[in-house]
């Protein structure tokens, strides 16, 4: 008979082997969660002296029941209604070319400055992030619009591609954020509070990105030459073009922040108004509608299967008591809360080099959250830190997924140059984490103020 902790460690090892062999993340978690539940339960019953046949039979029975029960629970979780709705909203915004309107507005106002095009890209990414919860969608849609412009004005490739890759990650932090929804559901936190907590860090990080661009062009002015100065009327007309999008954001996110809508209601209202705006602007046709539906369905599949798998995997991890033991070990180390947080951040940064963001989130939550609870950290604040670290992973070599996306849009730019361009933004994110550790109120002010903690 082996101990539960050993079963947990073996389960984690198996999981990593399966992931390395390219088994989809959700299937790997389902497989390990299901088989692990059988073995762990059988062991538990054997340890109290139950007959072997009976112990294994009970182990199977519990695992069967978990598999069906947790799957249906995840698929019928009312809070998760926000996923298809916000995904639909982002798909409509992307397919209807709203990203172009945002970029045009930001470009007309900032394009004449040194590095202004790159800054405009970041600002437009932040605006698009308020419509879309996906960093990939933000990077793809904004990259297609901004990269040709930056090429035209002879921007250095690292700065141009780096700003798109990094700007795209804002989609993961600025609400509505897919990562935050998953974090909220798996840690039983309020989606609304997390969304609110993401808004100030999202704005601060946008400003830090723009500051990073400023520092780059200060050192190398030729990397971001100024564009043409727009006339006053051009500036205001571009703002008028972006106004419907801003209205959708204000109605959706504003409605949620003021308590007029719940996050679930806000997601439906947001999808509806984005559709209406796109329709009025004449940006939708039958072909685009088909793509929007298929994209929404496909992204919904990605997120839901992973959540279903997490619902099966997390009880197995809890059963092994591995997270609890890890909490005991870490809290007994003479390094204090900050030391533990630093270890967690470093582990995440390391994993971020190899794992995709959402996958890393669901894989690590069963282990990391008990530590955060054990140390009495605010889980909303911790969630924002985790989301930013995951963003860093999205642009970290060798598997920064946003970098690959940018590479697919700019195939002539070598990978090394793109990765060279992301470092200023990577350090801006590190600075953001530092700020959040020093001043947790950056994240907690809005949720505390608007919903009374």
């Amino acid at each position, binding site marked *: 008979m082996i101990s539960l902790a050993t079963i947990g460690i073996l389960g984690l090892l198996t999981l990593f082997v399966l*992931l390395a062999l390219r088994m*989809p993340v959700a*299937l790997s978690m*389902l497989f390990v969660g299901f088989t692990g539940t059988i073995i762990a339960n059988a062991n538990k019953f054997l340890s109290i002296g139950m007959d072997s046949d009976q112990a294994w039979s009970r182990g199977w029975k519990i695992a*069967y029941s978990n*598999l069906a029960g947790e799957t249906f629970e995840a698929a019928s979780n009312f809070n998760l209604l926000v996923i298809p709705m916000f995904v639909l909203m982002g798909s409509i915004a992307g397919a209807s070319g709203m990203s172009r309107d945002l970029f045009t507005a930001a470009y007309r106002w900032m394009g004449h400055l040194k590095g202004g095009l790159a800054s405009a890209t970041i600002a437009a990414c932040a605006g698009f992030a308020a419509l879309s919860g996906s960093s990939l969608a933000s990077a793809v849609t904004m990259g297609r619009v901004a990269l040709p412009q930056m090429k035209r004005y002879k921007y250095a490739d690292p700065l141009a591609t780096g700003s798109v890759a990094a700007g795209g990650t804002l989609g993961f932090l600025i609400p509505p954020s897919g990562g935050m929804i998953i974090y909220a559901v798996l840690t039983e936190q309020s989606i609304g509070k997390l969304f609110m907590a993401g808004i100030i860090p999202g704005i601060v990080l946008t400003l830090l990105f723009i500051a990073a661009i400023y520092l780059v062009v200060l050192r190398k002015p030729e990397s971001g030459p100024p564009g043409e100065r727009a006339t006053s009327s051009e500036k205001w007309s571009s703002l008028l073009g972006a106004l419907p999008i801003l209205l959708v954001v204000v109605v959706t996110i504003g409605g949620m922040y003021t308590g007029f809508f719940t996050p679930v209601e806000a997601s439906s209202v947001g999808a509806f108004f984005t559709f209406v705006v796109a329709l009025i602007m004449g940006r939708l046709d039958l072909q685009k509608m088909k793509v929007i539906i298929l994209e929404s369905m496909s992204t919904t*599949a990605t997120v839901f*299967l992973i959540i279903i798998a997490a619902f099966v995997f997390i009880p197995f991890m809890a059963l092994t008591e591995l997270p609890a033991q890890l909490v005991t070990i870490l809290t007994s180390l003479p390094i204090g809360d900050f030391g533990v947080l630093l270890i967690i951040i470093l582990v995440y940064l390391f994993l971020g080099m190899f794992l995709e963001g959402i996958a890393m989130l669901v894989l690590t939550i069963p282990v990391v959250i008990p530590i955060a609870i054990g140390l009495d950290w605010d889980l909303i604040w911790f969630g924002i830190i985790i989301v930013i670290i995951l963003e860093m992973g999205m642009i970290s070599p060798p598997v920064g997924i946003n970098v690959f996306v940018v590479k697919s849009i700019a195939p002539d730019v070598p990978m090394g140059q793109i990765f060279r361009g992301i470092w200023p933004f990577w350090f801006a994110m590190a600075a953001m984490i530092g700020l959040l550790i020093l001043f947790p109120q950056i994240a907690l002010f809005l949720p505390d103020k608007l919903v009374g903690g």
Partner: protein
Amino acid sequence: MPNLIRHFDKILTWAAIVLGGSALAFMTIFSVWNVLIMRKAMNNPITGAEDLLLLCLVVIVALSVGLGSRTGAHIEIEILESKMSVWFAKWSLIFVKILGIGVLTIMSQQLWHAGQKAVKFGETTQQLLISYEPFYYLLAVSIAIYTFVLLLDIFQVLRSGKVEKLAINGDVL
């Protein structure tokens, strides 16, 4: 077999567009109607609205999992693939797909089984008391479709060494 895959893709795509699109449209419009008109304007929310939205969500999840299995929506980590020999890459992929078929077959069978017991255990929505039974079946079928896709994947790997996924912007539209 490539013809079978093409027909299968067409069915999946059109089911997603027609049924998924209808479900998404219903969810959006019904929710907005209930929130803005019935609740906020008329102070008379629709009874059982949450039940209907919840069941609609199950339908969307069921339809999307099948489609996602063909569009490559289920995240894989491919970092070590370039370090593998062609032989190892091929057979390890087949191995993990067989494991996947195993666990998904059990999952599908268990969901079906749970559906059969749903009435007996009184599993219904809270307000309208709609039985979950057909929705369990729907999820079971959806997982069975994913299992079938994994079988098709194995066939493709054996035939050409790689899996051709369904492109959302592709000809099938």
